[in-house]
């Protein structure tokens, strides 16, 4: 009985490790195709539009409400120690270091990883990927590489925009509800914010963007047949991207700020 349970556990662990290995090899192959010609600038620009520009509303709305709620929470906490003046700076630091990149990344993962996995998965099951090959076009170069590059470049920009909007969300609550003077709020935000606070969040955004496109393309390319197969690929892409973003966030935070 115990032996069976251990064997099942071992099989699960081996399958998980094999899956991670396959994704790592796929990522390596994607980067290699990104570096070698031919390049597909039209597909890159289209991916940039889909992943970056069209995600702006989702990221913006997430950021404004997060910034506003964060300001309220920090005010509630800091008022216990009569330290309400830290609200602008802590809100800004919290947004740019953690909540901006992580929540922005998760929202983009939900929107983009699912859409890439569904699109590529449908292409797989309708033989469009095979058609690409017969038309002398490598699917990794045509489908994966442009999306990897577009997501890696556009998610940090989304995070940057989200940071600004999130800080403004905090400012709206701070000045409208909590009685802060507008100029003082903005001055405190600006003065206590360091370059690396923002920079680390943008680097996280780039890593999260890469993860999002990688998971979308990987699960799409490995989609099984039929509507159910594409549905499963889409779900797996979002789950894997979200977990990988949270894990990467911890590792990057450890690397940037643990000293």
């Amino acid at each position, binding site marked *: 009985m115990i032996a069976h349970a251990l064997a099942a556990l071992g099989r699960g662990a081996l399958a998980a490790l094999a899956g991670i290995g396959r994704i790592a090899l796929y990522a390596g192959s994607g980067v290699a195709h990104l570096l070698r010609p031919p390049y597909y600038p039209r597909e890159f620009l*289209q991916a940039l539009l889909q992943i970056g520009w069209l995600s702006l509303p989702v990221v913006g709305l997430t950021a404004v409400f997060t910034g506003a709620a964060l300001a309220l929470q920090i005010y509630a906490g800091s008022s216990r120690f009569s330290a309400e003046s830290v609200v602008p700076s802590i809100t800004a630091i919290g947004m740019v270091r953690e909540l901006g990149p992580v929540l922005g990344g998760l929202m983009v993962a939900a929107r983009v990883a699912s859409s890439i996995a569904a*699109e590529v998965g449908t292409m797989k099951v309708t*033989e*469009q990927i*095979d*058609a690409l*090959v*017969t*038309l*002398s076009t490598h699917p990794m170069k045509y489908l994966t590489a442009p999306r990897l590059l577009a997501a890696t470049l556009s998610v940090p920009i989304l995070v940057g925009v989200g940071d600004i909007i999130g800080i403004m969300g905090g400012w709206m609550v701070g000045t409208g509800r909590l009685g802060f003077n507008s100029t003082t709020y903005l001055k405190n935000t600006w003065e206590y914010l360091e370059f690396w606070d923002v920079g680390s969040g943008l680097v996280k955004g780039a890593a999260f963007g890469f993860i999002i496109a990688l998971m979308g393309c990987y699960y799409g390319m490995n989609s099984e047949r039929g509507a159910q197969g594409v549905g499963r690929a889409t779900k797996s892409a979002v789950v894997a991207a979200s977990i990988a973003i949270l894990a990467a966030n911890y590792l990057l935070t450890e690397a940037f700020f643990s000293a």
Partner: protein
Amino acid sequence: MIELEGITKAFGKKQVLRGVNLSVGRGQSLVVIGGSGTGKSVLLKCILGLIQPDDGVIRLDGQDVREAPRDAFLARFGMLFQGGALFDSLPVWQNVAFRLLRGSLKRPRTEAREIALEKLRRVGLGEEVLDLFPAELSGGMQKRVSLARAIAAEPEVIFFDEPTTGLDPIMAGVINQLIREIVTEMGATAITITHDMTSVRAIADQVAMLHDGRVQWAGSIAEMDTTSDPYVQQFIHGRAEGPIAALR
């Protein structure tokens, strides 16, 4: 021109091809018939390198295809997929001119669009479909666009995978006639996979029947009707009784 020698392929425990030997001469039109799940599509995909055979050799003009430069090899082929496999995100003309817009056969966009229009006219479609998306076309029109894409770069070899599946008899007749005309006009070598005996008679010079992972019978279209092979007779007459099990 194309020779297959001892091609085997298994998916897990399921042995699909068990040593297929086949050859097609230059300019010939070979139709491969056989029941569902006998590995006809797998055979085409093995030739194109979309699926790697477990064993055996495939030669194109005497050269092992594994040794041929991939891009140059694929540039000699065109393929009409069963479901059309048109790219949803591209308008019709970019689907047809896909190969002419990128890679070694790249042309200026205006020239590629002109060629796309010329090929669309060849398959009976006009200027009005150029900027439509595949989802806006009927099944028959999608097949025609896919056929136009297959011939756009004037390949030496064209594969047709179930070209008339899902079409009404009249549209199927039109597609069969187009395939025959185009193959003859271009002097291309063609391999077609089909269950449709009307297509076989319209398209084939040579016929090969695949059964149980092997070539059960091969001969000319004239010999097909007179052969005493019970497998061929059962298949072409669509009989439930015979050596081929109805439930597979």
